Structures are given as C-alpha cells and as structure tokens.
C-alpha cells in the first residue's frame, strides 16, 4: 500500500488530501450533530413551555369557576391538534385529575414517569413551585419522550376553593414523544455524511485530475525526455506551457539540452578533426615504417652476401699468415713473427665480426631454422663452461655451476643454445676482473597458469664484473652497442654477441633480460622451453571466417571485406601472415592465442608488454591489415567511381580536383560538392600536376600532409607550370600555415575540418573572378605607390592610387576597381579601416593583394577570408623582385 502510494506523486498528494478532507468533514459532521441535538431539545422544551403556557391560559378560567368539562374539552383539543403529546394535570399530591389520555386519570403521576430524577423534581416542584428549566428524557417501551413540568400556582382567584394556605395547587406535565425528532436528526445525519462523502470524492477527484495535469504529467514527460536524452537523443525538448515552477524546470531542461548538444557537437567536430590529423600522421608513419622495413630486409640479404664474399679473402689472409708463421717456406725472424701474429690475431677478430654479422643478419632475415631436440641442460652448460676454464684460471676467477633438481631437459637447438651460453659466459669472463661467475639453472615461472606445470626453464649467468649502468640496460641488446666505446679497446668484442643471443633466445620463444649494479656485477637470464609444443608451428591457420569476424569487429568494417579472399602485395593472405611481421624478436610470433591477441590490437598498437622484459621491436600487423583494407575497399571503389562518373558527368559539371592521401577526406569533399561539381579524387601528390594539366579542373583542393610529395611541393609545381599555374588552388589541411600557403600562390586556405557551406562559398567566390583591368593601389608611402603604379601602367593596367584609407574609400566610391592592392601599414586611416569599408556591399567581392611589412596575423586573414589573392611582404624582396612578384600575382589572377 505504502509503495503503491510512493510510486506516484499524484497518489501521495491524493492520499494526504483525502485524509485532510475526511478529518475536516468528520469534525463538521460531529459538530453539526451535537449542535443539532441540543437545538432540537431546546426547541422541544420551548414548545413544551409554550404548550404549557397556552394550556394553562385555557384552563385557568374554567378552573377558577370549576368548569371541569371546559377543561376536558381543552385537553381534548390539544390531543386532537397535536400528535404524540400527552398533557397531564395533577394535584399537589400527584394524582392526575385531568389528562389528554383519560385512561391515566386518577392514577398517580409518578406511575407515568420512569425517570427518577424527573419524579423527584416533580415532587420538589409541587412543594416549592419552582419550575425546572431542564426537560427530562424518558424512555418507555422503546420510545423516547421529553418531559417538561410546570407548576400551577395558587392565585387569589383560587382562594375561594383552595384557601390561601397552599402555594402550589398542582402541576402540569407535558410528555412529548421525541422519537420523531431523533429520527429526523438521524436522517439529517445520514444525509450529511452522504453529502460529505460525495463531496470528498468529487473534490479529491478534481484536485487529483488537476495535479495530474499540472504537475505529474509534465514531470513524467520531463523524465521521459531526460531518459531519451541520456540515451543519446539530442533532439529532445519539452513543451513548456506554464510559467510556474514546472515550466521553469522544463525551460531549464531545454536550455541544458541545447547547451549539452552544442558542446557535444563541438566535441564531435574536434574529435573528427583530431582523428583526421591522427590518420594523416599514421599514414605518413606507416609509409616510413614500411620503407624502413624494406630497407631492413634489403640490408639483411646484402649482409648475408657480403659475409660470404668477405670470407673468401679472409680464408687466404688467415691461411697464408699461418703458413708464414709456421715457417713452411722457411723461417721468419722474431720481429716478423711478432708482426705476423698480430695480423693473425686481427684477422681472427675480423672473422669473428664477419661471423657475428652473418649470424645476426640470418636471424633478422628469419632464415635461421632450429634443429629442436631434447637437450640435457647440465651437460650442455658443463661443455660450454669447460671451454672457458683456461681463461678463468688465467684471470684467477672462480666458476660455479648450480642446477635445480626439477629441471633437467629443455627443447632447443643444441648449437644455438651453446652459442647463447658462449656469448653470455664469454661476456661474464671478459668483464670480470676478480671474483667469480655463477651459472644457475632452474624452472621459470614465466607464462605459468596457477595449477599447471611450468613452461620454461631459466638459465642465469651471474658475474662480479664491472656491471651496467641503468640507462644502458635498455639498449644493451641492440646491435653494436658495446656501451662505452672505450670498452672496445679494453674488452675485445664485436658488439653483436648479445643481439645474437637475444635473437636465438627469441627463436626459442624465450626471453632474455639482465639485472645489474654498476661495479658489483651483472646477472643475465634467459628462458628456454621445456615443453615441445611451445616451439611447434600451428598446423592450421585460424579459419578464415573467424579471423574475418575478428578483424571486422576490430576495424569496424563489414565482415565481407575480410572474407573476399584478401591479398596483400599480390599474395593471398592467410591468418598467420597477418601477424607475421618479419621481426624475430616479436613475442607474438606463434601460438593461436597470441595471434588473436595480436590481431585484437594490443601488440600491434605498439604498447610495451610487461611480461616481456627485454626490449622488443613491435609487429606491424595492424598496419598491414589496415592498408589492405584501404586498398581493397576504399581505393578501389573510389577509383572505379571516379572513372564511371568521369565519363558521364564531365561534360555537365565543372570539375574540382581533390588531392588528399586520405580517401575519406576526398569522400567528404565529394559529398559537399558533388551536387554541383564533378569531383575527381587523387590520392597521391606525385601525379597531381600531370593530372591537373590533363583534366584542367576549375578548382583544385589540396591537402598538405601527404606521403612522398607533400602539398607544398605540389602547389609549387602547379604554380610553376604555365599550363597549371592559373588553376586556383584551395588548400584544405590540418596544418594551419596560411602565410606559407598564400605566399606560394594558394587562392584560399581552409583548415580541416571544413564545413560544406564554407567550401562551396569559397569555390563559388573563386570561380567568379574576372579579368583585371583596373587596379587600385592603396599605399601609405607615395614613393612606393608611384613605383607600383608605374610598373603596372607599363603592363597595361588602368591604375588609381590612394595614399591613405580616406582616399582609398573615396576612390572606391568613384569607381569600383577589379583588384585592390592594399598596404596594411598606413598611418592615418590604416589598412584595417579600409578593410572595414571593404565589407560594404559595393566592393565585397573585389579581390585583394595585401602588402605588409610583417607576417599577416590570423585576425586579418580571417577578416579578409576568401578575398586575398596574394600576400607580398614589403622589404623582403628587392625592388625588381617585388614588382615581378606583384605583376605575376596580378597576371595569374587576371588570366582566368
């Protein structure tokens, strides 16, 4: 019940109202009943008193003359006239002597009255003559009566019969039946209650209806709209009909919706702009990345070949040196021997370098294949360690091997594991001057799911050597990074050992890392698998469909795109190829789990993964997939669209050439201009100029940030060729460098994102340009003015000159020029005042060439938006160059 009331405001108010009204009505009824009863009784008493008075008046005379029949008649009349009224006249000892009902005659009065108090009062009354003001209630046989008593006093008229001794002769008792009165009262009460109930009902219903209409309904509507708003519907608004608090609430809500919608729109625009920026940057980066990778693989194969070519002469160098040292062709003297040994030593070092480079390049080119066998860790480590025994003894170091019992075998390529150990132990020996080396093998907790057995064994080589600075640890595993070049002199090495070790460890799906304290020593650890499955290549690629779904979900593109047997670089794509980034150090090289994980973005987005403490180069899986999509879907459809549209619509519409490496940007321009122009999209800057020459577009829109050839280059090239220099170019870019744009000859400059109306207006404006005949020069320096005027007159233009803003305004009033050359640095009425005037209807479309001494500021550019055809900086160029530039500007403009 309570909850039912709580659910609706109307019900709550209704309940409170109903209770209040019921209390008020109840009180009213109670008061009315109580008051009514009292009134009725008073009325009956009055009636009784009056009846007594009239009766007494009627019987007084017959009594004094003893006319008993007259008295009886009188009483009889009363009986006939009134119903339910009994009148008794008794003597002083209460014997009834006259009565309206004759059966009561000669009975005693007290026998007709049950009310004891009334009887006592009557007795008193008959003795003292004092009339009781109070009527008595009497109940006889279920009927209620009201009894009034009146004394009949002894008067001088009565002395003749009764003597003067008695004060009271008797009494008159009137007994009125009050049942009718009470039933009338009861009926009245019932009526009152009924009316009250109906009244309460009506009032409550009325108020409830009003409440619902004025309060509940609007609040419910408001709540409903608020919910829709919360669900993202920005179009909601509340119909406000009143000025009361509800109305205020509605208005506030509408205001809030408007504000939030506008914020949200702004935010969306901003996000779109940022996304576009990011996209352009990403494309550039992707390109750079791809090129780097191509370069990298080129380098690898080059190195492999080089290493081979290098070994052949090394073979001879080492061999013949050894021949000499061994004195095969006769003895050498001691000095010669020393020199030859130095050659031999350096040749060995060089060979080691070549070998390491070969190893490294093989690893990087992904050409190392592992011969996986079950390998006895203890035996392998002991074998490798024993080869260092002479060096350890010579340096006075100790070597300790420690093997945990729970690890005995790993799955690995024996040669490669030995090479890793060799590299790490030789480093430890090399960099340790005193103390010792501890080699320890045990189980690794890497990748272990609780409750399952370990996957990897871990081998650590700890020394008490020089240690590594913390900032150097990061690049320790990079190629050629013997940390301090001075150490190369002290400790021989190729600088490739650790890179090779890392490459080999990663090939085994392991990781390698180091912890070190400078001056105290280093601890290199790496892991090798103890489960063979870890090294097995997945037999089957993930089914295409699932893969396609995953990709579609990640890239938010239709799944068909990925199901239509995609190809990349002419080859059909299988799932694993999506992630094969060619980097052997990629930790996601392998199991289906990591493939999916990679596909879903963590790794290929370049986030460093804590589980892999070594420095990893990241795969570029996403890049490949994204490019694939771009090429297969958007590029293709856009280009075919272009062809189709070109044939049918070229004749009909003017052509706008949109150059942007982002297909979506071109699509937007197409959407904006498509109704009125034929838009030809171009994704690359390289072919832009040729294309422009061929199709002669009315206007070119040009993006700045493009791979290979950027917008600036394209613009310069367009402006340098006579065939294309007159085509107006609107730069549409996220880069806001208007100054550069205008100085390179752009007709206009828009910063992304661009609105449809703005772009349309700009293009229309540019199209409207007409040949220039008359030129107005507004320049504060008379010398400069006349110089320009002369130069232009020579070129055949009709020139008007103005030295200040006032004159300029006057000149414009006289005749509107085709072009205004405006100096923005005048003293009196400066250029900006002229700009204000320029906004007037008359000359709003006259193009401007602006002269300025400083860089044009943003505000001015905005004020003159769409009208500036050129910006020339005074003082930047020599006089001739300046005039040349100016003439060129005007000619360019005039030519169209």
């Amino acid at each position, binding site marked *: 019940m309570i909850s039912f009331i709580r659910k609706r405001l109307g019900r709550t108010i209704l309940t409170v109202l109903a209770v209040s009204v019921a209390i008020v009505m109840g009180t009213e009824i109670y008061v009315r009943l109580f008051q009514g009863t009292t009134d009725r009784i008073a009325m009956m008493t009055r009636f009784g008193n009056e009846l007594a008075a009239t009766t007494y008046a009627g019987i007084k005379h017959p009594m004094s003359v003893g006319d008993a029949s007259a008295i009886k008649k009188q009483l009889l009349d009363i009986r006939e006239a009134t119903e339910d009224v009994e009148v008794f006249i008794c003597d002083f000892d209460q014997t009834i002597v006259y009565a309206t009902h004759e059966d009561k005659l000669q009975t005693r009065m007290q026998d007709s009255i049950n009310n004891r108090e009334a009887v006592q009062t009557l007795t008193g009354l008959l003795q003292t003559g004092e009339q009781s003001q109070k009527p008595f209630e009497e109940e006889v046989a279920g009927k209620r009566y009201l009894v009034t008593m009146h004394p009949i006093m002894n008067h001088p008229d009565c002395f003749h019969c009764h003597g003067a001794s008695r004060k009271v002769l008797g009494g008159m008792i009137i007994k009125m039946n009050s049942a009718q009165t009470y039933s009338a009262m009861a009926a009245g009460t019932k009526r009152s209650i009924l009316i009250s109930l109906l009244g309460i009902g009506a009032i409550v219903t009325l108020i409830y209806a009003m409440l619902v209409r004025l309060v509940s309904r609007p609040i419910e509507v408001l709540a409903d709209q608020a919910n829709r708003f919360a669900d993202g519907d920005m179009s909601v608004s509340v119909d406000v009909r009143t000025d009361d608090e509800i109305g205020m609430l509605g208005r506030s809500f509408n205001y809030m919706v408007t504000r939030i919608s506008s914020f949200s729109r702004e935010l969306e625009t901003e996000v779109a702009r940022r996304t576009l920026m990011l996209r352009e940057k990403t494309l550039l980066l992707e390109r750079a990345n791809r090129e780097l990778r191509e370069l990298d693989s080129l380098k690898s194969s080059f190195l492999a070949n080089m290493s*081979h070519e290098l*070994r*052949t*002469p*090394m*073979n*001879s160098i*080492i*061999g*013949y040196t*050894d*021949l000499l040292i*061994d004195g*095969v062709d006769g003895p050498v003297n001691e000095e010669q021997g020393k020199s030859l040994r130095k050659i031999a030593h350096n040749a060995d070092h060089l*060979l080691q370098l070549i*070998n390491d480079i*070969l190893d490294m390049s*093989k690893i990087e080119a992904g*050409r*190392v*294949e592992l*011969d996986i066998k079950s390998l006895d860790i203890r035996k392998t480590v002991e074998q490798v360690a024993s080869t260092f025994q002479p060096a350890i003894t010579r340096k006075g170091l100790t070597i300790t091997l420690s093997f945990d019992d729970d690890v005995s075998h790993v799955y690995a390529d024996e040669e490669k594991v030995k090479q890793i150990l060799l590299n790490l132990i030789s480093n430890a020996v090399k960099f340790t001057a005193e103390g010792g080396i501890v080699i320890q093998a045990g189980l690794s907790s890497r990748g272990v799911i609780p409750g399952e057995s370990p996957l990897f064994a871990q081998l650590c080589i700890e020394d008490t050597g020089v240690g590594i600075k913390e900032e150097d640890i990061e690049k320790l595993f990079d190629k050629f990074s013997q940390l301090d070049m001075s150490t190369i002199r002290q400790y021989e090495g190729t600088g490739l050992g650790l890179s090779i070790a890392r490459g080999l460890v990663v090939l085994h799906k392991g990781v390698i890392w180091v912890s070190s304290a400078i001056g105290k020593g280093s601890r290199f650890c790496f892991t090798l698998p103890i489960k063979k499955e870890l090294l097995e290549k997945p037999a089957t690629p993930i089914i295409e469909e699932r893969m396609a779904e995953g990709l579609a979900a990640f890239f938010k593109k239709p799944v068909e795109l990925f199901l239509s047997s995609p190809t990349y670089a002419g080859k059909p794509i299988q799932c694993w190829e999506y992630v094969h980034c060619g980097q052997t150090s990629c930790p996601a090289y392998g199991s289906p789990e990591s493939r999916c994980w990679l596909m879903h973005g963590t790794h290929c987005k370049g986030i460093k993964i804590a589980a892999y403490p070594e420095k990893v180069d990241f795969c570029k899986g996403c890049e490949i997939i994204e490019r694939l999509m771009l090429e297969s879907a958007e590029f293709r459809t856009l280009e075919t669209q272009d062809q189709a549209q070109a044939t049918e619509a070229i004749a009909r519409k003017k052509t706008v050439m949109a150059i942007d490496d982002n297909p979506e940007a071109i699509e937007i321009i197409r959407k904006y201009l498509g109704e009125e122009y034929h838009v030809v999209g171009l994704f690359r800057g390289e072919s832009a100029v040729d294309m422009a020459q061929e199709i002669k577009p009315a206007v070119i829109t040009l993006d700045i940030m493009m791979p290979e050839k950027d917008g600036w280059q394209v613009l310069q090239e367009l402006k340098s060729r006579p065939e294309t220099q007159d085509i107006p170019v609107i730069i549409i870019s996220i880069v806001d460098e208007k100054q550069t744009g205008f100085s390179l000859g752009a007709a206009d400059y828009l910063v992304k994102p661009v609105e449809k109306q703005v772009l349309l207006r700009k293009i229309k404006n540019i199209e409207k340009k007409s040949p220039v005949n008359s030129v107005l020069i507004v320049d504060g320096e008379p010398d400069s003015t006349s110089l320009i005027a002369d130069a232009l007159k020579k070129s055949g233009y009709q020139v008007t000159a103005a030295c200040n803003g006032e004159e300029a305004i006057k000149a414009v009033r006289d005749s509107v020029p085709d072009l205004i050359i405006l100096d923005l640095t005048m003293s009196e009425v400066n250029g900006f005042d002229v700009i204000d005037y320029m906004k007037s209807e008359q000359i709003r479309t006259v193009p401007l060439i602006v002269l300025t001494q400083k860089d044009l500021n943003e505000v001015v550019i905005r004020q003159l938006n769409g009208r500036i055809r050129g910006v020339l900086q005074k003082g930047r160029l020599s006089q001739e160059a300046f005039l040349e530039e100016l003439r060129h500007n005007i000619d360019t403009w005039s030519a169209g």
Partner: protein
Amino acid sequence: MRSGGTGKVLVVEDNQDSRELVVKVLTNKGYTVIEAVDGEDALKKASEERPALILMDISLPKLDGYEVTRRLKTMEDFRDVPVIALTAHAMKGDREKALAAGCGGYISKPINIRELPEQVRRFMEET
C-alpha cells in the same frame, strides 16, 4: 706434425689464392695435388687423374659443387672416392645438402691450415 700423406688429392676451387693455399699446404705434407678451377674442369680432371680424395668448393662457376659431386657419385669409378665439401656458406642446411649430394664430409671456410692435413688424412683413412 705428422706427415705421411700419400695419394692424389683433387682440389676444386675457383679462387686462385684459396686454391693455391690448399695446394701448398697439402703438397707440403707430401700429397700429390691436382687442381681444378670450376665444375666442368673438376669432372674432367677427376676422370683423367683418378684422385683418392676430392676437396670440393661448393660455390663454383658453371656447375656448382653439389652438382659436380652428384654427377661423380653416379659414376662407378668415384662411388668410393671421398668428396669433402669446402664452403663459406655457413647456412643451416648446407651440410645436409652437401651430404645429400654425396659428399663424405664437410670443412667450412676459412680453412684452418694447421688442421687441414689431419682432416684429409682422416677422411682418406676412413675409406
């Protein structure tokens, strides 16, 4: 150093310096050494001279060392003559390829001239 090398050894190597080095080392140990400069030459010299052992460089012009070995092994006369591959290719699979072609052993470049006579002696003794 033990000498006592007897028998004919055919050294197939296109690089003159490398070839002469091997020739010198082996001659010095008492072997009779015949030289061949490419694959075709190797087949010719082998048939003419009937060496007891052939040291075969793998990257040769015209016919490569694998092919020469394969052809020699199809001939009755050379079935039991050990062919030892000499190669600078330290690639995985080189050894397998050499063995598959019929080589009896494998010495990787650069050759250690102090060990070479011993290696040759061992291969000769094995057969």
